[in-house]
């Protein structure tokens, strides 16, 4: 009962992350003429996932395993009774379905940050639906649904590989396929850093459900995951702010918000496996590597990952997955033993999980995006629409009417 109550609550917390937290985090960073379109991509990522998940996504990810590759029982959740309990024995299967649905929703929405301000909205809707089935569900199955990566021993407590690396790579691939925005390299002012910071704070709040909820029980490991999540976010904010101050002599609030998210991303796979001192290292390194992901990598390679879906989620996600292999402490959770506690193989297993995910996600996302593009008559809005702004062209609305 207590476990069910906690996971019900956690599910609602994670839900808030996408159509509120991520929507505002990303929306505030987009130009004011594209603010609503950017918010709409997050909102509809969640909406599409909510439907696709109960139709087929859940059974592909968590149905009976077929050769380690995919799951399947039945469409439309048929056959699942309200009295059925999930494998952990203490929460209803239907609650597990709902909890996992919120993860599918945030993952596809996270990828949208790489491709804002130039993608056709219809392409986005079709892409989101197919991507959840063809990319998210298989990867979730491999790591969490009894597929081959879980048999290999990959540790991913709450979604470093399944959610963040997956979304970061998908974003990068689609950004490369879609091409840069016409104004790339020119001054593009974020519409509101205020909204972005509010969004980052809502993400932080929801992340307690994401990480501590992934224990699927109201117990000590959930409490530990909660605390290390908070610690990693805070130290990563300090790390990003400090390195940005050293580099540019400003304490930008956008940098602080970005650091918070980088820390949350990196602690995600490790949350139920590591102790507090490890979370300080994981968070601090996350702030620094993501800072360079955004300020170094992107500038050097000149791709237009508009809001740094790859620069933050991809880069900090990869760090977090490796760090889990280093710092997993069996005194926290007997299910995970890392390099520092004598299991040198774990780091290699983590790297294998990362590589498999990157390769599969990159190839499958490219195919899915091509299909979505063909089905909607081209993925990119016209040059006129891009300069006019997608709020007006795609939605017929304005974010603000100030007079």
């Amino acid at each position: 009962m207590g476990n069910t109550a906690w996971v019900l609550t956690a599910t609602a917390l994670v839900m808030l992350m996408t159509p509120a937290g991520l929507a505002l985090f990303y929306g505030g960073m987009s130009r004011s003429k594209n603010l609503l379109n950017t918010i709409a991509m997050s909102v509809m990522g969640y909406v599409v996932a909510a439907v696709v998940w109960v139709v087929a996504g859940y059974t592909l990810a968590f149905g009976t395993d077929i050769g380690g590759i995919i799951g399947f029982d039945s469409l439309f959740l048929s056959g699942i009774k309200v009295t059925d309990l999930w494998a952990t024995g203490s929460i209803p299967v239907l609650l597990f379905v709902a909890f996992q649905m919120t993860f599918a929703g945030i993952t596809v929405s996270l990828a949208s940050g790489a491709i804002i301000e130039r993608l056709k909205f219809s392409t986005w809707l079709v892409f989101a639906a197919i991507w959840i089935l063809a990319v998210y569900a298989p990867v979730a199955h491999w790591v969490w649904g009894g597929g081959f990566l879980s048999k290999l021993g990959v540790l991913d407590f709450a979604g470093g590989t399944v959610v963040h690396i997956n979304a970061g790579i998908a974003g990068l691939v689609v950004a490369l396929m879609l091409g840069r925005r016409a104004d790339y390299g020119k001054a593009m002012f974020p519409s509101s850093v205020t909204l972005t910071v509010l969004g980052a704070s809502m993400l932080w709040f929801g992340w307690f459900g994401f990480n501590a909820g992934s224990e699927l029980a109201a117990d000590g490991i959930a409490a530990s995951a909660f605390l290390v999540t908070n610690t990693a976010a805070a130290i990563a904010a300090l790390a990003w702010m400090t390195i940005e101050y050293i580099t540019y002599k400003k304490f930008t609030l956008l940098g602080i918000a970005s650091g918070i998210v980088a820390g949350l991303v990196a602690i995600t796979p490790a949350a139920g496996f590591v102790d507090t001192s490890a979370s300080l290292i994981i968070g601090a390194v996350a702030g620094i590597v993501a800072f360079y992901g955004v300020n170094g990598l992107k500038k050097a390679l000149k791709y237009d990952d508009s809001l740094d879906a790859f620069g933050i989620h991809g880069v900090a996600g990869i760090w977090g997955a490796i760090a889990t292999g280093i710092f997993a402490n069996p005194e926290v959770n007997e299910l995970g033993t890392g390099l520092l506690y004598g299991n040198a193989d774990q780091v290699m297993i983590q790297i294998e999980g990362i590589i498999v995910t990157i390769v599969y996600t990159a190839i499958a996302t490219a195919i899915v995006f091509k299909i979505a593009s063909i089905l909607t008559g081209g993925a990119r809005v016209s040059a006129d629409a891009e300069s006019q702004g997608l709020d007006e062209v795609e939605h017929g609305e304005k974010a603000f009417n100030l007079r």
Partner: protein
Amino acid sequence: MKKIESIIKPFKLEDVKDALAELDITGMTVSEVKGYGRQQGHSELYRGAEYVVDFLPKIKIEVVVVDELVDKVIDVIVKSARTGKIGDGKIFVSNVEKSVRIRTGELDNEAV
């Protein structure tokens, strides 16, 4: 009649308005404008991308006064809007050929 247009720093608006009120200047038109002169712009930093903002926000005050008041008004505006730092703004004076108070139909000096 002369029109005196002053471009000033936004936070100086209250000081200038109060100083003009002491001269019994009973009306003015204020607009929020953008522009740059010798001060040039400033730069903003977003995730490592530094953008130069060319146009800075300024306030434009327009007052129309009888000829005899022009020098006094200019003097008051200069004193109240001045900080001594670059970007304090400029004052332009031009002739006004005619003025009408719409409600009463009064003309020229009666109408300013």
